[in-house]
């Protein structure tokens, strides 16, 4: 039976770039065998967090553990993580097929058959140099490698960058298939919240280097609702409730309530709907 790891533990991580504080005392755990959505606005600190977790850059303070071992300069811990990043770290002269071949050398559980199948499925020309691939196909190349490594921790930073709708859909399906076949910890950092909302189990929202929310997607969305209707009626209803934001259109208003309670005594003129993850994210990160 496959051993379940302790996950990636982030402890008191801080990092600044000049005057910009990218991370402030961040602590969280990415547990094994769960799919996480790491959400945040541009410059929130998502990539910084993932880059520190993979030993690419250094934290000013704090540490990251993988299955209980410090990741800092630790080959064993690093060998358990594969990070797909926006940046291209492959040499200019390297062909896609060589990038795949070398990944198989470094990751012992690499599934070459899967890599070939995924390359065909996405229409990736592996004879091309990686630098000559379009932005979308660069992402596809990295997706092919990432889904074939079988590393227990998969960190995907903007995995659908440059992908068209068809390829994005295909990626989400293949990610779920891969997860079902080989359950592991997957962290997806993306701006396309609506698209991944059906995929992720856990949500980590990061804002200005601090963790704003870290809970299951289900509990986060269950803790709130959207109330819509005429502006005055909405205003009356939300009085005293924890409203995280509102949208207005003409005389109509939608308010987003996040107070952990279910709506009671709702007037007939108002409509109650589920919280939408993207709306919730916007309201939380705008506040």
């Amino acid at each position: 039976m496959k051993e379940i790891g302790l996950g990636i533990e982030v402890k008191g991580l801080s990092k600044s770039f000049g005057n910009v504080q990218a991370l402030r005392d961040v602590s969280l755990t990415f547990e094994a065998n769960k799919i996480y959505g790491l959400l945040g606005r541009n410059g929130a600190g998502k990539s910084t967090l993932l880059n520190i977790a993979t030993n690419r850059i250094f934290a000013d303070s704090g540490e990251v553990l993988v299955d209980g071992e410090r990741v800092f300069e630790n080959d064993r811990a690093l060998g358990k993580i594969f990070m797909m990043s926006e940046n291209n770290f492959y040499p200019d002269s390297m062909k896609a097929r060589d990038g795949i071949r070398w990944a198989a050398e470094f990751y012992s559980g690499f599934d070459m058959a899967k890599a070939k199948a995924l390359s065909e499925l996405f229409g990736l020309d592996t004879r091309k140099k990686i630098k000559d691939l379009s932005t979308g196909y660069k992402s596809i190349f990295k997706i092919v490698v990432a889904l074939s490594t079988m590393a227990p921790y998969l960190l995907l930073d903007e995995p659908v960058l440059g992908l068209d709708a068809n390829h994005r859909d295909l990626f989400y399906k293949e990610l779920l298939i891969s997860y079902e076949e080989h359950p592991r910890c997957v962290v997806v950092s993306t701006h396309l919240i609506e698209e991944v909302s059906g995929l992720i189990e856990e949500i980590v929202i990061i804002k200005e280097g601090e963790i704003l929310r870290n809970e299951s997607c289900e509990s986060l969305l269950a803790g709130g609702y959207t109330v819509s209707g005429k502006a005055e009626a909405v205003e009356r209803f939300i009085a005293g409730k924890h409203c995280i934001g509102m949208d207005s259109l003409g005389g109509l208003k939608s308010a987003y309530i996040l107070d952990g309670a279910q709506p009671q005594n709702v007037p007939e003129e108002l409509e109650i709907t589920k919280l939408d993850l993207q709306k919730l994210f916007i309201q939380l990160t705008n506040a």
Partner: protein
Amino acid sequence: MNIKPAIKYNLNNFRKSLSIYYLVIVLFYIFSLIMGVVVEGQSTMNGTDIIAGGFLFIVGLGSFKDEFHMLIQNGVSRKTTFVAYIMNLGIAAALMTVIELILEAVFSGIASITGIDNVRFGFMFESIYAGRYAGTGVFLRTVETFLWVAALYLALGMLGFFITNLYYRMNKTLKIIVSVGVPSIIFIGFPIVNNFMGNRLVEAGGRLVLFILGYPEGGSPYSSDATPYHMILFCLTLFVICGGLAWLLMRRAATKKL
């Protein structure tokens, strides 16, 4: 540990440039033989051992950024990347020294068999220590050639690696300052100071070079007292110092946005 694939990756990259380099060198050897037939008069082809050192220096210069990024992408630590480079350099230095010895022996043999006796192939090493090996056996000469050339290759390969690490860690301003400053000191500052000091700097430098080459005080290349071990020790010290400095720079190197 990912040390084995890291070494394999480094060697694979090195293999390509090495093949091209030795293809050119072999063509050069063949060209020298042809010239020996066509042109009258004595000619000597030596110094490919030193040129190969220059090649390893350039390989060292180009051996950091791409390898570092590729290996870190594949879960390899800086420590392992550094160890893999040292292993690769060690293998390269030994291999290239052996290739140099074989090429010299093969082409000297071809020249001798075919009667092209006006072309002489040899190492720069042999010219520097000509007196030491007059009347001695091939074994001592071969062993000391190997040690001297391999140590030189190690030092030059690591020097290149150190310089490329230094440039990787520097910001744009520092890069400009160093790129302009160092040549200015060497080509402008040094001659001025030397002139001011009545050529004593050049004289001291000359004595230092002779000491490193292992010449006795006032000695010449034909002196039988010349020893290659000063140079071997000097190269190994340079290798250790450059390696230590390169590691200090590399251990805190962060990946850069590409």
